[in-house]
């Protein structure tokens, strides 16, 4: 891209007010669940298009430029693993790859093999499945490399299914396969898929995903949170007071909000961790919390959205939403978006005095996943469909 083209693009952005940002992983930019785009989706959201999917999936869509990627699993034992690329503009299919699981595909009925959200470094897409099959494609669907992590490490599996989404940072793809038996996290070279490092992790089932925060990858487990250098896997800091094994923590500014004993706000420094505050009443259900402005938002197991101060954890209000929720909330501008298990997409105004549900869209399908936001649009998937809301 020439300087002239860059200048023209910048001019266009200034004119239209839209600066598009990709949504490259579970919970988007730095796994915060908050869009960094200048312009949030409009309040009069409608279904722009719908694409059919051939299989199940709890994985969230990701968006790279004009491409939307989503994974599915199909077949009697969910052995067929699909990676799709759709055009963001109209939902047409650019390409599809269908692979076969090499690891175990047994899961609890509620989840499925396509449970881990893929991630991208902008040039490549990394699709990990519950069977521990991992594929790297370029954006045009060329297979760059693959791994079978249960083929490599035979006891790395969970009979209930796994869902830890990978993250990519500084040329390293960080994957977790944390379970009761052969539990590990590994940093892989994005170009080759070879191990740069591999860490033993607590032998306990874990469905949380890593948080990308302050040049570290924070690995959460029942033992606590271990922050590592992505390139080496070396410990930067270690919080060992326990943490959730389902909802994942979130970092914002200088603070990591750990899903630990409710929410525990941590200010980690190299080698040590200072606890800023703890509110045990901020109990997340399945959904992961998000930070928007000076507030943290938690969805509890009863489907109640709780707003609290990031400064001291003090609760501001509670808003009962239509639950239950398996997916996590996401946010853009001054709005929070979440879909319940019955497929009711809800737009929330968190600045209203007690919070307010502004809009509901009935997707009329079971939705167990987290939306993605990019280009002023929101993407949601079910076991059979991918929607663009705009």
């Amino acid at each position, binding site marked *: 891209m020439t300087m002239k083209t860059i200048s023209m693009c910048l001019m266009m952005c200034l004119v239209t007010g839209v600066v598009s940002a990709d949504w490259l992983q579970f919970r988007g930019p730095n796994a915060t669940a908050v869009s960094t785009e200048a312009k949030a989706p409009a309040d009069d959201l409608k279904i722009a298009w719908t694409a059919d999917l051939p299989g199940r999936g709890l994985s969230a869509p990701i968006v790279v430029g004009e491409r939307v990627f989503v994974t599915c699993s199909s077949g009697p034992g969910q052995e067929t693993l699909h990676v799709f690329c759709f055009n963001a503009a109209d939902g047409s299919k650019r390409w599809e790859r*269908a692979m076969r699981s090499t690891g175990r595909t047994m899961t609890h009925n509620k989840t499925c093999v396509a449970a881990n959200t893929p991630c991208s470094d902008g040039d490549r897409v990394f699709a990990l499945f519950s069977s521990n099959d991992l594929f790297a494609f370029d954006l045009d669907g060329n297979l760059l490399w*693959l791994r079978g992590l249960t083929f490599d490490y035979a006891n790395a599996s969970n009979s209930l299914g796994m869902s830890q989404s990978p993250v990519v940072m500084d040329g390293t793809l960080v994957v977790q396969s944390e379970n009761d038996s052969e539990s590990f996290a590994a940093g892989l070279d994005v170009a080759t898929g070879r191990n740069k490092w591999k860490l033993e992790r607590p032998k306990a089932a874990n469905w949380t995903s890593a948080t990308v925060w302050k040049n570290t990858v924070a690995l959460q487990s029942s033992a606590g949170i271990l922050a590592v250098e992505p390139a080496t896997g070396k410990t930067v800091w270690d919080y060992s007071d326990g943490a959730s094994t389902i909802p994942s923590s979130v970092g914002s500014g200088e603070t990591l909000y750990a899903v630990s004993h409710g929410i525990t706000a941590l200010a980690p420094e190299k080698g040590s961790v200072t606890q800023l505050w703890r509110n045990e009443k901020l109990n997340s259900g399945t959904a992961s919390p998000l930070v928007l402005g000076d507030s943290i938002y938690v969805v509890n197991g009863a489907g109640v959205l709780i707003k609290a101060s990031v400064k001291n954890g003090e609760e501001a209000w509670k808003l009962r939403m239509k639950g239950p929720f398996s997916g996590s909330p996401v946010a853009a501008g001054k709005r929070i978006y979440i879909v319940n298990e019955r497929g009711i997409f809800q737009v929330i105004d968190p600045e209203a005095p007690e919070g307010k549900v502004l809009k509901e869209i009935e997707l009329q399908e079971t939705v167990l996943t987290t939306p993605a936001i990019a280009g002023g649009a929101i993407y949601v998937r079910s076991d059979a469909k991918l929607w663009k809301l705009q």
Partner: protein
Amino acid sequence: MKSSLVCLLALAAASLQAADLSKPIEALRAVGKEGQGNEAAGKAWQEIVKADAATLPEVLKGMNGANPLAENWLRAAVGVIADDALKEKKLPVEALVTFLKNTQNSPGARVVAFDLIHRADEKLAEELTPTLLEDPSSDLRRHPVAKLIEAGNVALEKKDNAAAIVAYGKGLGGARDEDQIKVLAKKLRDLGQKVDLPKHFGFLMSWKMIAPFSNADRAGFDTVYPPEKELKFDAVYEGKTKEAKWVDFTSADEYGKIDFNKPFGMEKSVVGYAATDFFSTEDRPAEIRIGCKDGWKVWLNGELLFARDEYHRGAKLDQYKLPCQLKKGKNTILVKCCQNEQTEQWTVEWEFQLRVCDATGTAILAAK
């Protein structure tokens, strides 16, 4: 003469294409654990996907004897070539049918071939379906079994019970997947037919069992108790809460569950063992398939096949498939089954189910 020349030229071109692909296919087949060979495979894959659709059988053939990772590299390449060929209506359907019909080709590759035939010519795929009932691929068997279930249902609607019994019975004979077997067994039983599920699956129903050894702090999983050193069925050992003695146990469960709670009571933090002899008519490859939600280990003729220390995350038929080699005559199978300390209602089970079958899931029945 002219047509012979054309054929010769076509054959020469085809063999050239095949020869051109042999090296990149070999690069894909060379991938191994921990990303070994990925760099070379990535380059080779780019070469293969540029090949003409006529090479599809050759690329599929690359899957024969390949490890599952290499199969996926090749599967992805076939997908790319086939997508283009289908758009241009250039899929070599006849060659794919030939490939499918050769049961010496790998089951995984033949499944891909059948799917491509189905995408190109649905009617032809329908015609081929009945021929797949006794196929070495359990995936391919699903299609004719589904058709037979449909045929039985149609006959039943017409109140032609005899025809329904024939269709369901034939379907059950070919079925290898639990979901289809369950449907067929129920249909046949509803029509007054007897179905022997333990025999169909090949569950081992009669065992000698001993317990309770200690699994305090889950340490029993790695503790070598006497049955791992000797199988002496009249021996008595010190157990966790009482003497550990061998007892005879025959399962009455048609899914072959071997339940330690029945002879030994609902103990917690305990280890039990079950042993049985399986008489094979020949030296042969086989699979021991186990379903178990407790910690377990399985030995065949003293050789440890696999060990799994996961507790109460769920169990199902064929949860773990353990390739093994049976010898002609007596083969001794030993199972270690570890119950943990959890007290929730869903952690009561201290049991396993085990069957001996071939790679298709067809039961290998004991000689005696």
